[in-house]
């Protein structure tokens, strides 16, 4: 076969790029119904909880700090939903075989995970902002005319931090999903870390009075997460300290996932 018959590709065509990978992951995220439902659930439940709490507060009279409390309660629920979504974003690719298409398009692999993480973080952050500020808005509407409901600049900063925590939770779960490559397993571990670990450590500390358990408690993912957006008391870690703890959990999960993604056969 002479070289003359070899197919010559036209020059100057677009190639694999960071922007392209981000766009691809955005198309993937928005084109699944599970994404739409999950994010809708986060917003709707967040606003609903705020409505309930605020309405109840009106009856009891004491409304100081209620808008912020009402808004952040939604995060307790929202973190579970985005954790499930974070796992599914990658485990769904493994269960359907899509991961092979993804890694054929992006054979260096790590950039594929980074693009996924960036798109998931930004989207979840925006949904988080809509949730918390929407919830505050609902609360202020219900409590309109009541005294002591004005928000400080610090309050607004904490609301943004709550949205950041939600976004980091989705990334933590994405890392777990990448490590485990399995939806059920990934969701079990993610929810276990978020929901069960604080309870288990709390129980151990309560029953045995073990100091290590009560010492470890604030280092847990969701404990530190709550501390991220809640003004700290006397003994607790600072918000910055809590943010660093959550970032470490997220980084360990994602880096672990990235290393395995790179080394394993797909």
């Amino acid at each position, binding site marked *: 076969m002479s070289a003359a018959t070899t197919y010559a*590709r036209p020059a100057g065509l677009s*190639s694999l*790029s960071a922007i392209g990978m981000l766009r691809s992951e955005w198309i993937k995220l928005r*084109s699944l119904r599970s994404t739409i439902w999950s994010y809708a659930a986060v917003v709707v439940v967040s606003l609903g909880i705020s409505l309930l709490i605020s309405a109840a507060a009106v009856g009891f009279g004491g409304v100081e700090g209620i808008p912020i409390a009402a808004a952040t309660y939604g995060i307790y629920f929202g973190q579970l939903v985005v954790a499930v979504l974070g796992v599914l974003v990658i485990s*769904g690719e493994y269960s*359907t*075989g899509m991961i092979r298409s993804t890694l*054929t398009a992006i054979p260096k692999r790590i950039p594929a995970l980074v693009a996924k993480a960036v798109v998931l973080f930004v989207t979840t952050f925006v949904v988080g902002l809509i949730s918390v500020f929407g919830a505050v808005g609902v609360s202020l509407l219900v409590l309109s005319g009541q005294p002591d409901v004005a928000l400080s600049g610090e309050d607004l900063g904490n609301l943004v931090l709550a949205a950041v925590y939600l976004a980091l939770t989705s990334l933590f779960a994405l890392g777990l999903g990448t490590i485990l490559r399995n939806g059920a397993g990934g969701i079990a571990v993610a929810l276990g870390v978020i929901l069960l670990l604080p309870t288990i450590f709390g129980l151990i500390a309560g029953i045995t009075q073990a100091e290590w358990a009560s010492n470890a408690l604030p280092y847990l993912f969701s404990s530190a997460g709550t501390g991220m957006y809640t003004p700290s008391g006397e003994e607790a870690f600072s918000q910055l300290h809590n943010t660093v703890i959550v970032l470490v959990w997220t980084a360990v999960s994602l880096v672990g996932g990235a290393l395995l993604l790179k080394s394993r056969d797909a």
Partner: protein
Amino acid sequence: MINAEGLTKRYGAKTAVDDISFTVKPGMVTGFLGPNGAGKSTTMRMIVGLDRPSAGTVTVNGKRYAEHHAPLREVGALLDAKAIHTGRTAFNHLLAMGATHGIGRARVDEVIGLTGLESVAGKRVGGFSLGMGQRLGIAAALLGDPATLILDEPVNGLDPEGVRWVRQLARHLASEGRTIFLSSHLMSEMAQTADHLIVLGRGKIIADAPMSEILSSSTRNTVRLRSPRAAELASLLQGAEVGITSTEPGLLTVSGLSAPVIGDTAARAGIALHELTPVAASLEEAYMDLTQDSVEYHAGAAPAVPLTPAPVAPQEVVR
């Protein structure tokens, strides 16, 4: 151009691909054959970097697949019809795949048209038949208009019209000077599509030759003849290297002798011939010859009729 050197893949103690070297050349269709478990799919997955070789290297157009700046424009691969998220529509799947390389809507619509998926492009892939999934996989492979195409069992699940379309597509793309590497278990289809064959058995290459060479090397090139005195002629034709079978009275199938030799023998004995036809071995027969020692999974029950009749001693069959 695909170039494998000493390519090896081990899974624990099992060696799936065992130190194979081969070249898949542009401008022709290279068929990749072998029994189940011979290592074809593993080899194809190693070409696009989904599996990491235990040893050896494989390059596409001189570079490892992952080192290309635009992998999808270099190689289009259909490795597994199920490499698609079932919850996404066909259109969005192609759009997302193309987006990584800046390939836009226009090309997506083009490959949808090319593969005949217009009517289902907006439907979620979960509801697709095997054949539609296969067409979508081929559409994805064509997205980057690649110079090299790797197609693992592309006609699997396609209707006859689809099978024909894949054959014509492969031939057409090869005629443009592209490298086409395809596997199939449909021997008749492969015989019509491929110019060159690489046959794998138990992880090793057992043949790497032009189609014509593989066909002519088969021991099963035979001559069919009809004669009212077939039995008499059969006894004249007997010899050490000669195999004669008969499936109906007056009809003989002779291996090991050429048609002229048989015709001359009959003429000398004054035996009339009503038919004398050289029959080339089919690819299926040539393939069976090549792979009979390297089949990984044999059917459990022994068939009542031997599947491989040659060579048969003449006295058994001449009536």
